[in-house]
């Protein structure tokens, strides 16, 4: 343990506490997972105000979990935060910004199993630097159905000269994103993403593009609504609060196909993946003409 202290500023605690009871995954294993994934996570979440879902006693449904925007009491001074005034609640919120390994470890040590990020950076909160398509299947539609829709979406976007990237949500959906130059407002990007969804719904019976239709059984919703300031998606490689400890996993487009299952990507399998499909994505920013 002494040696551990030399490697990280974070005082790690309760490492043997079980976080995922069905598969007996401990807090120590969760922290180890995030350490291993840090090189892939940090470049993407850097300079963004983060939102946490903390599970201090693990993920079982009878345990407390909470959504946290404000840096909690006792946040060490070396953790970077960004103060943003919330119009809706009329108060300042000190968001955590995670640009280094120690902060990521600190988040894992806080039992922030799920980490969420907005679509813009702290220096330009009103200007999104990527578009977000939430491909969200409603039962009995599954991830497999969402994959088919995502492939249609990919073709459509590539036809427009854009470069889409994809990840699993870690639950039943898929997240398709396009890095863009941060020059448009959310209003514009939201309208653009909505428009693509409407076109897609015209071409496919499975797809719905409007919020009111989201609960229609068997449909896949192309959700555009998150393209708004401080709305978030779960970060790539975030664990989810599922019994199998599934992970929101960036995929190569060749992996997106029928028969794909959320439980293919868990805390055990993802850290062994050689692929890094979102590597340097912000160097591949598209210029969006809207």
């Amino acid at each position, binding site marked *: *343990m002494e*040696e*551990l202290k030399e*490697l*990280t500023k974070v005082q*790690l605690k309760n*490492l*043997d506490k079980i976080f995922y009871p069905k598969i007996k995954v*401990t807090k*120590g*294993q969760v*922290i*180890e997972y995030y*350490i*291993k994934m*840090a*090189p892939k996570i*940090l*470049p993407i979440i850097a300079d963004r105000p983060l939102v946490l879902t903390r599970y201090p006693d693990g993920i079982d449904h009878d345990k407390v979990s909470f*959504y946290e925007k404000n840096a909690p009491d006792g946040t060490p001074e070396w953790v970077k935060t960004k103060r943003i005034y919330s119009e*809706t*609640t009329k108060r300042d919120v000190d968001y955590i910004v995670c640009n280094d*390994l120690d902060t990521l470890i600190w988040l894992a040590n806080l039992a922030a199993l799920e980490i969420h990020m907005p679509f813009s950076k702290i220096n330009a909160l009103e200007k999104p630097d990527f578009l977000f398509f939430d491909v969200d299947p409603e039962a009995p539609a599954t991830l497999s159905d969402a994959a088919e829709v995502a492939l249609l979406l990919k073709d459509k976007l590539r036809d427009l000269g854009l470069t889409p990237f994809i990840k699993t949500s870690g639950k039943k959906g898929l997240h398709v994103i396009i890095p863009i130059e941060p020059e448009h407002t959310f209003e514009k990007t939201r309208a653009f993403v909505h428009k693509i969804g409407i076109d897609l719904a015209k071409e496919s019976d499975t797809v719905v593009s409007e919020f009111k239709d989201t*609960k229609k059984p068997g449909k896949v919703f192309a959700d555009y609504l998150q393209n708004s300031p401080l709305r978030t998606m779960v970060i790539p490689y975030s664990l989810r609060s599922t019994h199998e400890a599934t992970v929101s996993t960036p995929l190569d487009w060749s992996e997106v196909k029928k028969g794909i299952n959320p439980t293919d990507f868990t805390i055990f399998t993802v850290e062994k993946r050689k692929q890094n499909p979102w590597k*340097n994505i912000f160097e591949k920013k598209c210029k969006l003409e809207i």
Partner: protein
Amino acid sequence: MAQEKLEKAKPEKVSAAVPRRSIWSGSITIGLVNVPVKLYSMIYDKGVSFHFLHKTDGQPLKYVKMCTKDDKIVPWNEVTRGYEVAKNEYVTFDKKELDEVKPESDKRIRISKFVDYFSVDPVYFDRTYALMPDKSKEAYSLLLTALARKNKAGAGRITLRTKEYPALLHTYKGALVLTTLRYAYDVVDPQDFEDLQKLKEPEKAELDLAIKIITDLSGDFDITEFEDTYMKRVEELIAQKLKGEKIHIEKPPEIEAKGLMVALRETIKQLEKPQ
């Protein structure tokens, strides 16, 4: 056979022991009517408690008050009370000064109104005391019967020791009991949490399902279905210790820390590499 099972299932009586001494006596006052009563504790916070001992010689430890300036132990006659008005600034009082402003218990439970018992939300409930007849059993019985018949509770106030409480006089298992209440300023209004600001209306299908689950799992509340498992396990451990058995406590594996260090070194190396 079935009969036998039924009898086995009958739960044994689970309740705390009757206290020996009353903690207060006075009377319930409703207008001009007085009902003399004695007040007994009725709630115990049992749980398990341990004493701190000195590891090396097994002797009980005691708390002492130490001066934060020179770490010297301060005797009681040198202790006074300070109210912090600003950081590290105190207004001091001696005990006598404070005793003089303490409210006097006037030995009355003053009932001003009768209300529906269920109209008082349990969040306000503080502590319940049993009331037993003092001198006259007739007045007690009359009030008990009338309250039970009307299904009402008396709302009023009582001063216990040095604090005045709002209180509810009600019936419980054929007795009059008094539940002290918290003041409105002691209780958080959950609507003040920002989490509740944008609550979505549930979809009808989801709501129907949720209601069905609730209906299917509905039943009568029985407090004896709940057991304090921690206390039970500690009691088992105590019994084992008394029998001289060694207790095996599983230690968290050190392996975890080792895995973490390997991962940390690897990742730190990777992050130092220019991307």
